[in-house]
């Protein structure tokens, strides 16, 4: 403003005098209020005030300057409003309203003011149009650019997908729901060998394979029908050259944006090699690596399967073959030769059974078995066994050597209903043993009766350790009484096996088995401990008094631990050595090794009583007997059984009995008669000077609670 002093506010609100700063500010404020909110302007309110004030000044100056171009300044002001983002038409109408209302500065003509205001409107509209067009252009360009970018990205992603599709080593095929094949990738072309065009000509259904299970196409129909999203299975395809290829096939249903089934996608992976490997592994697991025959696992599986599917009345047969002296071949000619021999035998056995639809398995070592699933009788099996023996026995060329081996065969032939696989194998094993025991190079036929007997022995022997652990072995007691006064001389501990199936078994049923198997040691130790504890419970440690008498098997006598075992049984029970008697048989001591003698001596030195059991049944070496540290003889029950009735007092048997009693006394031993059943026997024995008796007359053997009362009564 150039001449402030001339500016005076007009009473009607017009700009009355130029340079009235205060008035201009007020007007600018009025303008700001009018346009406020018409459009978004990114300025603080005071910044807006300043902006509008500046514009107002320029307009006033232009109007007052006669040389000034009101059109130019007005247009610039209109454009400045747009630049500040007063872009709404209402911003203009409000602006015009305020400016026209204010009117021209007092000194200027109203026309010039009207011209500048009109120019503001023109400038505003022009700038707005320009800005709007520019912004439209920008946004359309941005949209086009975004689309272009999306297209590019889509192209890239399609290329990437294409690369995956083309480069995948897994076969990929895409088809429509009618089964038309639309796309196949090179891997699928390679896999099946058809050119792409041929795939396109064919439908999915034409890839049916003769071996397809019905399920494949059932699954396919479900997928096409939208009831199933995908399925996976192993399926064969025919290659263009007619070969079959095994694949792992996954077919998925592809849906569109509205979730409607549209396409099918097949992923096809060649698993022929994997299957071959799997079959190889399966074969290896079931076959003997050396001979290629079925192995034990496979044989047992076949056997189980046979029994599972057996019809009534079918008979099953086994030839169980074992080479004679194979160990000698291995030892003398070496394992390589032994292996060759086994392979040759395998081939020969195969040749024999090949024509009959049978199979041969190698169970291990030099054991082979031929299973005959449906036999007409033992004659058929025997003739087969003879053929097998003959085949093995033919001279064999092993490198430079001519070798001849023989075999033994156990033949079992039974109705399948009467036997189970385990029994069949056991029977075969047993029969093979018979064949070997009878001289080898021959077959033996299983006989059920002989088998049953041996089977009992066999099963008892193998069950004994478990029975011992389960406490199925009990100790019963039988009293020994002095003939002179009927007082208790001692009790004999007798082991019993409470067998779950066979009931209570006496020692005669299993002690010999236990000796064979070696379990007698543990068994004997157990009986010793139990008997000593029981005796202490009855008798305390009072001596003199009754003893407990425990049988020792000859095998136990040869056990180095015996002395320790006895010592421990005494220590743990509290029983004194004098209260323990150990019974041994003549055969166990006669002609025994020095060790046994030392053992007996050690036991005797401890103060333990030693008795000869079943005296008179062995070939007693009286000289030797004389040297043993014995205390008692127990006269075998047969001596009493041989005695005649009351009238035969002078019979040789009575004399013999008398002699034996005398002999015992001569050796300074007490003597107890076993098997005393009648009062007459007691009388006779008494008259002959026999010290004590044992038998049903004095009480049968029984569990401790039965015998206990009796023992106590006598003690008191």
């Amino acid at each position, binding site marked *: 403003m150039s001449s402030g002093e001339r500016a005076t506010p007009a009473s009607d609100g017009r700009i009355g005098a130029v340079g009235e700063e205060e008035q201009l500010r007020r007007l600018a404020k009025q303008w700001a209020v009018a346009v406020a909110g018409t459009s978004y302007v990114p300025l603080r309110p005071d910044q807006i005030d300043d902006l509008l004030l500046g514009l107002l000044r320029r307009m006033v100056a232009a109007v007052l300057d006669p040389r000034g171009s009101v059109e130019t300044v007005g247009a610039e002001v209109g454009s400045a409003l747009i630049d500040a983002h007063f872009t709404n038409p209402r911003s203009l109408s409000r602006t015009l309203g305020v400016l026209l209302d204010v009117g021209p500065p007092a000194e200027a003509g109203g026309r010039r003011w009207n011209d500048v205001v009109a120019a503001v409107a023109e400038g505003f509209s022009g700038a707005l149009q320009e800005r709007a067009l520019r912004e439209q252009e920008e946004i359309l360009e941005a949209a086009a650019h*975004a689309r272009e970018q999306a297209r590019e990205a889509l192209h890239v992603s399609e290329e990437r997908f294409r690369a995956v599709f083309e480069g995948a080593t897994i076969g990929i095929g895409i088809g429509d729901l009618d089964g038309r094949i639309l796309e196949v990738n090179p891997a699928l072309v390679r896999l099946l060998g058809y050119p792409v065009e041929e795939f396109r000509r064919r439908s999915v259904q034409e890839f049916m394979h003769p071996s397809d299970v019905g399920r494949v196409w059932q699954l396919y129909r479900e997928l096409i029908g939208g009831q199933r999203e995908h399925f996976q299975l192993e399926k064969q395809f025919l290659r263009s050259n007619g070969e079959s290829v095994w694949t792992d096939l996954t077919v998925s249903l592809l849906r569109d944006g509205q979730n409607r089934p549209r396409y099918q996608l097949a992923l096809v992976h060649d698993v022929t090699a994997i299957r071959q490997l799997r079959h190889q592994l399966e074969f290896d697991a079931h076959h003997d690596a050396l001979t290629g025959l079925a192995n034990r696992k496979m044989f047992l599986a076949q056997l189980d399967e046979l029994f599972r599917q057996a019809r009534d009345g079918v008979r099953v047969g086994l030839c169980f073959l074992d080479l004679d002296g194979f160990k000698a071949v291995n030892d003398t000619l070496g394992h390589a030769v032994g292996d060759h021999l086994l392979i040759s035998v395998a081939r020969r056995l195969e040749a024999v059974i090949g024509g009959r639809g049978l199979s041969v398995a190698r169970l291990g070592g030099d054991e082979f078995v031929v299973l005959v699933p449906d036999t007409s009788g033992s004659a058929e099996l025997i003739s087969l066994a003879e053929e097998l023996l003959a085949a093995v026995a033919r001279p064999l060329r092993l490198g430079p050597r001519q070798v001849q081996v023989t075999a033994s065969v156990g033949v079992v032939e039974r109705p399948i209903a009467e036997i189970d696989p385990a029994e069949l194998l056991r029977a075969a094993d047993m029969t093979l043993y018979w064949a070997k025991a009878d001289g080898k190079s021959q077959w033996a036929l299983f006989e059920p009766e002989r088998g049953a007997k041996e089977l009992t022995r066999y099963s008892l022997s193998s069950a004994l350790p478990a029975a011992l652990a389960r406490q199925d072995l009990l100790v019963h007691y039988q009293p020994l009484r002095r003939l002179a006064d009927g007082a208790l001389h001692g009790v004999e501990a007798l082991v019993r096996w409470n067998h779950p199936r066979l009931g209570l078994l006496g020692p005669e049923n299993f002690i010999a088995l236990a000796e064979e198997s070696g379990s007698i040691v543990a068994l004997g130790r157990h009986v010793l401990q139990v008997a000593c504890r029981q005796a202490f419970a009855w008798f305390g440690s009072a001596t003199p008094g009754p003893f407990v008498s425990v049988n020792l098997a000859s095998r136990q006598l040869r056990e180095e631990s015996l002395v320790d075992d006895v010592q421990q049984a005494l220590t743990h029970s509290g029983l004194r050595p004098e209260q323990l008697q150990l019974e041994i048989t003549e055969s166990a001591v006669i002609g025994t090794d020095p060790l046994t003698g030392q053992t007996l001596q050690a036991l005797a030195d401890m103060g333990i009583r030693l008795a000869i059991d079943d005296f008179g049944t062995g070939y007693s070496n009286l000289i030797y007997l004389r040297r043993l540290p014995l205390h008692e003889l127990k006269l075998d029950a047969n001596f009493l059984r041989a005695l005649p009735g009351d009238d035969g007092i002078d019979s040789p048997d009575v004399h013999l009995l008398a002699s034996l009693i005398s002999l015992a006394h001569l050796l300074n031993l007490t003597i107890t008669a076993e098997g005393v059943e009648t009062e007459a026997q007691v009388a006779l024995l008494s008259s002959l000077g026999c010290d004590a008796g044992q038998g049903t007359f004095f009480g049968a053997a029984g569990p401790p609670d039965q015998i206990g009362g009796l023992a106590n009564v006598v003690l008191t």
Partner: protein
Amino acid sequence: MERPSWVPAEVDLSRPSVARVYDFYLGGSHNLEIDRRMAREAIALWPDLPAIMQSNRAFLRRAVRYVAAQGIDQFLDIGSGIPTVGNVHEAAQQANPEARVVYVDSDPVAVAHSRAILTGNERTAVVQADLREPEALFEHPSVRATIDLARPVAVLMVAVLHFVPDEDRPQDAIARLGARLAPGSYLVLSHASAEGRPEMAGSHRQLYSRTPTPMTMRSRDEIERLFDGFELVDPGVVWLPLWHPDHPGEAEQAPERTTGYAGVGRKL
């Protein structure tokens, strides 16, 4: 969300975009007929809308100035839309010429436009990302190149979270985002609420269901909970015009008519 990252976003110009509708409300012409048609319908139903959007934009300007005054020179503007008028980098760089800004939006057209107008501005970057995947956002090379996460950042979520429905767990996204921020960082947030004009909310929501990003109005309590992990600066969550007004003396009339809440929180 399950789409692999190399499958491109669609550019669908047949539906209105909230970014372009917002531009129209602010008086811009960065919009298409489809956007303007919807905006005019909305304004016909609710004449306050342009004023509300201006109020929101004004809050953004004040909030940027406020956090810049607290020493913040890195800005992550999530849901930036079309940053034409009153954009963050101008406001921020007025306060501090060194300030850096990353604009983030999921709308490919808004992103393309932002790139066009920001070409040559070395202190800004534009990223197309989804705020529901903050991990991917922070791993974006442009974000890593522009923002130093070891120092405080202002994360702006201005008028964007009402486009994230509850089932997309906006609170969870903020928590995951906040976990990456240095202490002293700020969260600037504004959010539409039905509490100011309950009678308007229904029809408005319906209009926005035409866009790919329908609206979810939230209560003041719910909006306050979005600040979990941040300490609200005074005056807390308030109607848009009431947050640090330019002229505290001039009480805004009926601020609830803006139906938008605003707040700024500081990460502890």
